[in-house]
């Protein structure tokens, strides 16, 4: 990807969660982390479509883990952030930060 994309709000959240989780980033903990930190319920369908979309856009890459009995013999799909993905996270963060500049008085007031 020659050009850096910006991320949607939910995509941004997913990218941050994947970054947080490092090697342990697969469906269940990603969802739990977003729910825990944002306090908002996350629909599984929305999460999976977002993951798929981000992978298509080149922001994430994935690998299949080993099947475990707890999962009925199915493998986990682990995600990790690509360099392009990292660029997109940074760009989005920067754009929001620049927009927020000067509003600290409002934004950080309890």
């Amino acid at each position, binding site marked *: 990807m020659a*050009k850096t*994309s*910006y*991320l*949607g*709000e939910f*995509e941004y959240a997913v990218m941050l969660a994947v970054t947080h989780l490092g090697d342990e980033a*697969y*469906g*269940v903990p990603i969802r739990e982390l977003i729910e825990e930190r944002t306090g908002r319920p996350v*629909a*599984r*369908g*929305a999460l*999976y*479509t977002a993951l*798929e*979309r981000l992978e298509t*856009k080149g922001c994430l890459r994935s690998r*299949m883990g080993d*099947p475990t*009995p*707890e*999962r*009925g013999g*199915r*493998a*986990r*799909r682990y995600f990790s952030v690509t360099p392009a993905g990292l660029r997109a996270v940074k760009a*989005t963060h920067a754009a929001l930060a620049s927009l927020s500049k000067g509003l600290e008085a409002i934004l950080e007031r309890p």
Partner: protein
Amino acid sequence: MTSPLPAPPAAAERLLRLTIRDAEWRDAVTGDLREEFVHLVRRLGPGAARQWYWRQAIGLGIRFTAARVVPRSAPRRWQVRDADMEPRRAWLPARDVLYAWRAIAHRPGLSATIVGTLALALAANATVFNLVDALYLRPLRFPGVERVVIVSSAPNNAPGAQHNSVAPADFRDWQHESTTLSDLAAATFWDPNMSGVDEPEQLPGFLVSPGFFRVLAAEPLLGRTFLDAEAIPGQDRRVVLSHGLWTRRFGSDPAVVGRTIRFDGEPYEVIGVMPSGIAIPFGAEAWAPLAYPEERWTDRSRGGLMVIGRLADGQTIGTAHAELAAIVERQQREYPETNARRSLTVVSLTRGLADGFAAPILAIWQAAAILLLVIACANIANLLLARGAERQQEFAVRMALGAGRLGLIRQLLFEGAVLAGMAMLVTVPLAAAGMEATRRGMPTTIYRWVPGLDFIRLDYTVLGITLALGALATLVFSCLPAFQATRANAAHALRDGGRTMAGASRTWIGKTLVVGQVALAVCLVAGAGLVIGGVDRAVNGVMGFERRNVMTAELRLDGRAYAEPEQRRQFVSQVFERLRGMPAVDTLAAASSLPYTPAGSDRIYPEGVALSDAEVRSARVQRVTPAYFDALRIPLLEGRVFTDADHPDAPLVAVVGRGFAERYWPGRSAIGRRIRTTADGPWLEVVGVVGDVVQDLLLDRGTPTMYRAAAQAPALPTAFIVRTAGDPRNVRGELRRAIAAVDPELPVLHLRTMEDVIAERAGGITHLARVLGAMSAIALLLALLGIYSLMAYLSSRRTQEFGVRMALGATRGSLRRLSLGHAAFVTGMGLAVGAVLAAALNRVMSSALFGLVSIDLPSIAMMTAGIGATALAAGWLPARRAASMDPTEVLRME
């Protein structure tokens, strides 16, 4: 863990496997779900976990299917679009549908109301249109049916259109001379008693000339049709069976061809079986050759033949009529004695065989169904208008961001289309149920006279019409709100937070729609009320006889065994013999027909009364045994009724109904006057006058009726009438056994109480009343819903205003009155318009339904008042809610 791991529902897993195509994704997703499922089982138990799993599976299934069907791009807000990188997508209807679905799913209650309303109205239309199609437009469906015509020439003053009135010699002339018709054939009623099979039965049958099946272009399924040589007396003991009879009584056995069956006691050889769909005319189940002796073919004085013809290539009904009219005119000149007053009609077979009463009934049904659809559309438009006002801000934001007005309209239309599509899905099973109910509701007695009952079912025509109506309805109800919603000035909407957008024009449209709805509902309710009232009078009203505690048996004394009057007399008295003296039997009588059953009318010639040609000189002539009047409790007004002394050798006598007497001898006594039934026949002396009897549904009390002594003129069709001491059904068995003991071969056509006779005769019209009642109830419900939603919407728009008023000292009572005032105004307007329309409808219906309904202003006024009261109640609820809010709360609300 020692216990085996709990497994999620297998069907849900299958659903996921089906919907997630990519194998790796499938594993990842189902694996994740399984992992969480195991935790949930520990925390909540297996039941709740399975429920949870199902919810997830369905949600994910929809999500993945949608993702596959609708390619999505990242949300626009955050994406910097690069025209070179990402080619502009082609317009995708699927995406519009998805957006529409989101808007619809956002307000499930409202959407469900719209879908339900529309589905009800569409189902009503589909059902009724199916009836119109099956019973009126295309009751006969065999190839080439449109080329077949019915030709008749009836005396000018014959009552009603009669197709079986052609004289044999006239038919012969037409057959030889016509070139516009490639073939002509004649048919006449036969209705034989079939015996020699397990149970004797009277069949609807016809005697037909050999070319009959050629005219219909009907090839036999088995065997052959009639040869010309078989239309000769002595050679005519051949029969062709209908498909229905063949399957019903002969188990579809192909070996039936060649078998011998007894009809009216005579042996007939079965030579063929017709395919299904050929039950012509009038539900015919058996056909035999029409074998008149040669001298009968030269007869012009007596009618009796029904004539059908096949249009030659290139000919139309018009050209056939022109040619035959010339022939009929020549016949009038050549045979003035018999033909002078005959006139010609040529109609298509479909029109000719249609039940005359069906057309107005079906027209009323269809009109009611369309009214219902209009009301439903008005309702939906109103709901969408209110919804559009709510979404004003959404639209304004979109337009501010560059959405085109056309795009928004397109999206609203798509929302309408998706709603209509959902409604159509609901319509199909609803309509199927409606048709099933209709077919069940049809009384079996009319089966023969109403061709096309078999076509009452869900078919492509119905689905097509539903689709078309649905599309039309979508346009009607979503266009108005779409234009309204997108007309707003974006800047205003944004600034006002959508609060003051309840502009004058929108409420004006909403109010007009509600006024229309109320008016149409009043119309429907008034119309249905009229029909229901009329039917009630016809079924439960004053009839001139006492119908309770009467058992009847109808049969037909046909065939050689009853050719002589004496034989018929004998039969009746032998049956009487066996029943007399039974404790349950109170009075025993016999008659040629029962009230409320079809009976022909006879011509009459009252002595000393000059009748013009135009005047109907026919009366219903009943041949009755002396106890008939007593058995049905028909009052004697003057003179005497028949006695046993009125035997065949005694002077011929008659008893007439009051209406008869008043018509021909007004102001004078009828006793001692004379009547005859043919121009040169013997005179009958009137010995008594009895009360009038309502002889049939829809006929006034004044139907001229004349009674003859059964002993002096024994009838072929005969009905036994038994007045009982207790429940008439108790003598059912006795009556059947008594008849079977006298003649085991004779089929009993009907064995039923007099009340059932009336109920069955009125079945069709009762059914009509019930369906209309149901439709008007739905319409009323929709109109009330319309008033309620308009009032709720208006109140919600004015919440702020109310808050201000209250803060300034207005009382709750005054606010309620203010709010209710609107409801009262809208309702009152609707009622006024509706009452005017109802009065007009009333007049139309009175003429369409032959005096069944009459203008009934008090009941219209009552219905109007009732609707008004309910409508006000529907307006009261939102008014109360609005007025009972806390003003400070309201003012803080944004």
